[in-house]
């Protein structure tokens, strides 16, 4: 039932979704290999969540196809959903139940036998460090605990693919790292992960490959480090309190220059001598030379205009 060996974990072809009077996704095609961790990056409203919701059978595609281990999301949603573990963007834990009961009730939806659910629930609560909160009400949990419980719930059916929609939005650094650690340990066991995020660090930490989406289309994809090297180079110069002469000097160099408010960004590309050059010509200029990151790629591809 789970397709042939060698098939993609997820395959999407020309996915489109139009609803509420707009085209949220406009022809998205991608593949996720078994065991791969793929991150969808994009600003708010880019179409990440809509794409993920089509894969997880919440939204029927307007056109295009998507399969999960060869099973069509349109014709066999029950079978597809059995293979998925979904962490939604909004916490939708059941506030009418305590922590343990949340898992027990959820397991029933998958038709897992009672004793089996209980065993798995106990094991997963250990995994997400909530074993001592079994009887707590959901409202008593912190944001980080809720997310961990959502993760445990998503793992209850032992999914082949884990779908994480902005798994750490709004969490403090401790809580965020706790989630990352667990996702990495799941990856080590061979679980395929599809996640959406607008935290570049999250993508860089977790993903084998990132897919940059904006305005409902894929702009670019690749391994995080390759994307950075290809799109931005290795270093970035940030300068402030600069005068025209400095800006003009950088502008004349090869590479890309961007002026944003009171700050200047210079992406030298292949140019590696920029530090020495600046030390010689503008020794007193306030500046910072740092490694290029995925965030630089992201801003280059999706622009700096606010989205909401």
């Amino acid at each position, binding site marked *: 039932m789970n397709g042939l060996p060698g098939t993609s974990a997820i395959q999407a072809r020309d996915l489109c979704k139009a609803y509420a009077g707009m085209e949220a996704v406009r022809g998205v095609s991608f593949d996720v290999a078994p065991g791969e961790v793929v991150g969808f990056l994009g600003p708010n409203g880019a179409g990440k969540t809509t794409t993920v919701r089509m894969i*997880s059978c919440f939204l029927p595609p307007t056109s295009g196809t998507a399969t999960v281990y060869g099973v069509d999301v349109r014709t066999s949603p029950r079978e597809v959903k059995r293979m998925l573990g979904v962490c939604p963007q909004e*916490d939708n834990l*059941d506030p009418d139940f305590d922590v343990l009961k949340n898992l027990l009730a959820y397991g*029933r*939806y998958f038709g897992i036998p009672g004793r089996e659910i209980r065993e798995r629930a106990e094991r997963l609560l250990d995994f997400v460090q909530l074993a001592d909160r079994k009887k707590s009400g959901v409202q008593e949990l912190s944001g980080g605990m809720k997310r961990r419980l959502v993760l445990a719930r998503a793992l209850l059916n032992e999914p082949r693919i884990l779908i994480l929609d902005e798994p750490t939005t709004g969490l403090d650094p401790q809580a965020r790292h706790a989630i990352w650690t667990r996702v990495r340990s799941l990856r080590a066991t061979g679980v395929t992960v599809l996640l959406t995020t607008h935290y570049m660090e999250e993508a860089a930490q977790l993903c084998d490959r990132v897919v940059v989406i904006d305005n409902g289309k894929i702009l670019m994809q690749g391994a995080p480090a390759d994307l950075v090297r290809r799109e931005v180079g290795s270093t970035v110069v940030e300068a402030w309190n600069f005068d025209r002469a400095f800006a003009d000097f950088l502008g004349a160099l090869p590479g890309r220059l961007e002026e944003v408010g009171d700050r200047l960004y210079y992406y030298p590309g292949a140019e590696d001598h920029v530090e020495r050059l600046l030390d010689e010509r503008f020794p007193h200029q306030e500046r910072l030379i740092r490694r290029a990151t995925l965030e630089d790629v992201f801003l280059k591809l999706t622009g700096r205009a606010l989205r909401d």
Partner: protein
Amino acid sequence: MRATLRNLSLRALRVWQRDADVYFTTWKTEFLPPLLEPILYVLAFGLGLGQLIRHVEYGGRTLGYLEFMAPGIVAVAIMFWAFFESTFSSYVRMYYQKTFDAILATPLLVEDVILGELLWATSKSVIAATIMLGVLTALGLVAWPTGLWVVPIAFFGGLLFSAIGLLFTSMVKTISQFNVPMFTIIMPMFTFGGTFFPIDILPRWALTVAWCLPLTHVAFLTRSAILGFASPHLWVSAVYVVAASLVLAAWALARMKRRLVP
């Protein structure tokens, strides 16, 4: 519509089970309203209004007012419990708690969720009616064994009113908009649906209107069961209630599906 009906499955019972679990964890407080409600009515109407209205002519017999009215409050409970559950409670689960969203990430389909909600709201009517039947029996107001018919009547009546409720749940934009069906449909039925007085005393046009209301038929069936009255018209009401409940349930399913799957 056909695809919607084809997607219906027994998995809906998992959704029913979820709602029932919540209900039964607090059963002591949940059972209180249907236990106390008939007692309150009986006290108020028996000791108060019953002193003013000594006798009611109904079905060719002379009844005490309490005897006449008691089945009416069971019919009203069938309506209220289903309607409240499928409007306010379902809306809270759908909109505020995102319970449906959580369930839809599992092998259950939207149809299972909606049917489960319908069946649960129906169950609340059945539970309430059964408890009230017990209380009224203790008060000596029920003819047995015909009184047992109240259970299937509560099932189809409950399904009918939960379907009406869910239809509105599929339409409202905010929870306060439930006031509209509440006061244009439910309250008129509560007052004119053959609950507190025999509708035969109404003027001709009002009588015709009353017989169009679902509650009138549910009340007629409930009263006949509890009083042990037989009448050839019972079939008409039974067919009305069963047919309306099935048609409205199918309609509510289709409407809710459109709301949940954009």
